[in-house]
């Protein structure tokens, strides 16, 4: 019959489905035999961890939404209802609340991996750009989620962040009114943030699907940053990386559990245990920890519009990173200078985070300005120049040659990599 897929699946029921809708063939191709570089280190677990984290957030979020009330007079009490009266409501909520922090920890490490090993370089530019879109969507989702408990920091955080848009001339105030659904952060704001907070994860899922689809076209980068040249360089995704990811997921869940069960509020702000009060501003308005570096960039510029532009710019610059980095060598392992500068970038990011935590006074102003300067200089000045000035170390011939220490890579075990490659 024309158009039907010729399936290799032996189970008759699955075969019947697969013939008409080849999802099992696709799964086998993309997650079974998918040829994956054999030299991944544990940094390559974090994509899978982010996926697990997304599922945890959606699963807990759905049940939280069943018990939540997006109304300014009820929201704070609804959270207490969840914490005290709903069966295991405290568990759902603490998992969701700390899950947001875990998500950012995982994604920041995932991004660092991409930066260190040059995963954004050709042919993976679009893959990287989709990743930056995911980061932006995540930030928007996390921000709106933090507003929902309607505590003091929810309210004042929402006020400060939405007010940023008022810095833009002409359209700024109109954008802010639109975000608020009125003339201050109030019930319409909470309503729309709840609606969008529920919507965004599904948009996020869509973009993540594209991110993964793009990954499966180019294939993964690897710690050497060199292309896969032969079947000897790869292993089938299953069982090699399914087992490695399983181990990674266990370690990740242990860290997650330590937060949820023993320090559930250590990353939060005590002010958010006080119901939102538009008439009383807290002494310091601090965003959640994962926004602190960007908050510090915002505050390091004396001009509001410039500050807002720099803050957004710090993410926007990532979109053009594949073209700012002029070096053809991907992995920092073979870039003696880049390998030092990338750590300066990490340090500047951490310093910015620390400055964001403190009042913008004295030393913190100077520190955050220096760190902001370095952050932008790294992308806009150092990376374009480095590609021209740096003398990269010699690249290994192939992944298999490198991992077997120049012994030429012995024959692969039966059924490991060679066979799947024939299919692919």
């Amino acid at each position, binding site marked *: 019959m024309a158009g039907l897929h010729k399936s290799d699946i032996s189970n008759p029921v699955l075969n019947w489905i697969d013939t008409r809708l080849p999802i099992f063939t696709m799964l086998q191709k993309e997650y079974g035999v998918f040829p994956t570089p054999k030299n991944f280190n544990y940094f390559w677990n974090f994509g899978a961890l982010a996926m697990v984290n997304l599922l945890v957030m959606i699963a807990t979020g759905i049940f939280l939404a069943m018990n939540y009330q997006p109304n300014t007079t009820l929201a704070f*009490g609804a959270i207490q209802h969840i914490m*005290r009266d709903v069966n295991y409501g405290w568990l759902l909520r603490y998992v969701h609340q700390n899950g947001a922090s875990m998500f950012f920890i995982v994604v920041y490490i995932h991004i660092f991996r991409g930066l260190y090993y040059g995963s954004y370089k050709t042919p993976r530019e679009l893959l990287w750009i989709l990743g930056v879109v995911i980061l932006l969507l995540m930030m928007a989702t996390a921000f709106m989620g933090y507003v929902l408990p309607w505590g003091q920091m929810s309210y004042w955080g929402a006020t400060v962040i939405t007010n940023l848009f008022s810095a833009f001339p002409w359209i700024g105030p109109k954008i802010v009114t639109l975000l608020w659904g009125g003339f201050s952060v109030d019930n319409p704001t909470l309503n729309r943030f709840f609606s969008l907070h529920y919507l965004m994860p599904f948009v996020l899922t869509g973009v993540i699907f594209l991110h993964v689809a793009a990954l499966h076209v180019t294939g993964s980068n690897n710690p050497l940053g060199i292309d896969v040249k032969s079947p000897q360089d790869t292993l089938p995704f299953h069982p090699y990386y399914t087992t490695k990811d399983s*181990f990674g997921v266990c370690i990740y869940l*242990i860290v997650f559990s330590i937060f949820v*069960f023993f320090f559930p509020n250590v*990353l939060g702000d005590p002010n958010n245990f006080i119901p939102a009060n538009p008439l009383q501003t807290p002494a310091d308005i601090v965003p959640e920890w994962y926004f602190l570096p960007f908050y510090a960039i915002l505050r390091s510029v004396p001009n509001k519009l410039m500050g807002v532009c720099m803050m957004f710019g710090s993410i926007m610059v990532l979109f053009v990173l594949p073209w700012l980095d002029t070096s053809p060598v991907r992995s920092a392992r073979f870039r003696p200078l880049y390998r030092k500068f990338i750590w300066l970038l990490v340090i500047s990011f951490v310093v910015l985070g620390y400055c964001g*935590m403190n009042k913008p006074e004295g*030393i913190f102003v100077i520190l955050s300005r220096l760190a902001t300067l370095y952050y932008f200089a790294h992308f806009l000045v150092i990376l374009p120049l480095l590609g021209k000035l740096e003398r990269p170390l010699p690249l290994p011939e192939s992944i298999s040659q490198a991992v*077997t220490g120049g012994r030429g890579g012995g024959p692969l075990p039966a059924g490991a990599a060679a066979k799947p490659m024939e299919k692919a």
Partner: protein
Amino acid sequence: MLKLRSLIAGVFAAGLLIAPAFAEEEVVLPKETWSFDSLFGTFDLAAAQRGFTIYQQVCSNCHSMQYLHYRDLAGIGLSEEQIKAVAAAVTVPQGLDDQGNPKEGPATPADQFRSPFANPQAARAANNGALPPDLSLIVNAREGHANYIYGVLTGYVNPPAGFKMQDGMNYNKVYPGHQIAMPQPLRDGSVDYVGGVTNDLAQESHDVVTFLAWAANPELVERKQMGVRIILFLIGMAFVTYAVKRKVWANVEH
């Protein structure tokens, strides 16, 4: 944020040596030992029950605890009969009668803790313009948590010479700005204890803070116990998955 902040601050202060120069006038909080503090700590139920008595007799005259229900008191070890008795002693609004008039009656275990004032305006009017905060979450809602609340309760001293006090305010060495609207709520012997427990200010404060810490985190004991079981399970799973991974990778040069 405090733990994280002080942790990171410590790391940075060591490296930068400049942080101390910018430290603000820091209030030193008392460092009490709390039954619920440690990794496996639970609530000292006897202390929490004494603390509830103090709440009933002292705090509840001004402070609400609107997110608690009388049934929740099972969490500090009160029996069903005790809870019924505690609730029945309180008169709460019970909606409308058949003629549409507001009705009142004895509370049941399902009722919320009765609030001392009908609304915030009434609370302010009765308290010299200050609003006594709801205590359901007070331990979580202040930097310093239990030690801070304990510090406020035991921090009433005479103002230093030359300190300008506003009308109707009280000096407290821990409260931000040192002027607190709440008059000293507890003193030695404020509440009668049975069973030979000393009812001095320190013990009373310790007990009521234990009660308030329970009220803010009633899930704490169950949470920690579940955490121990889940983390032990995950450590086991980590060993298993690592062994599987090793086995799978054993025949690959990598």
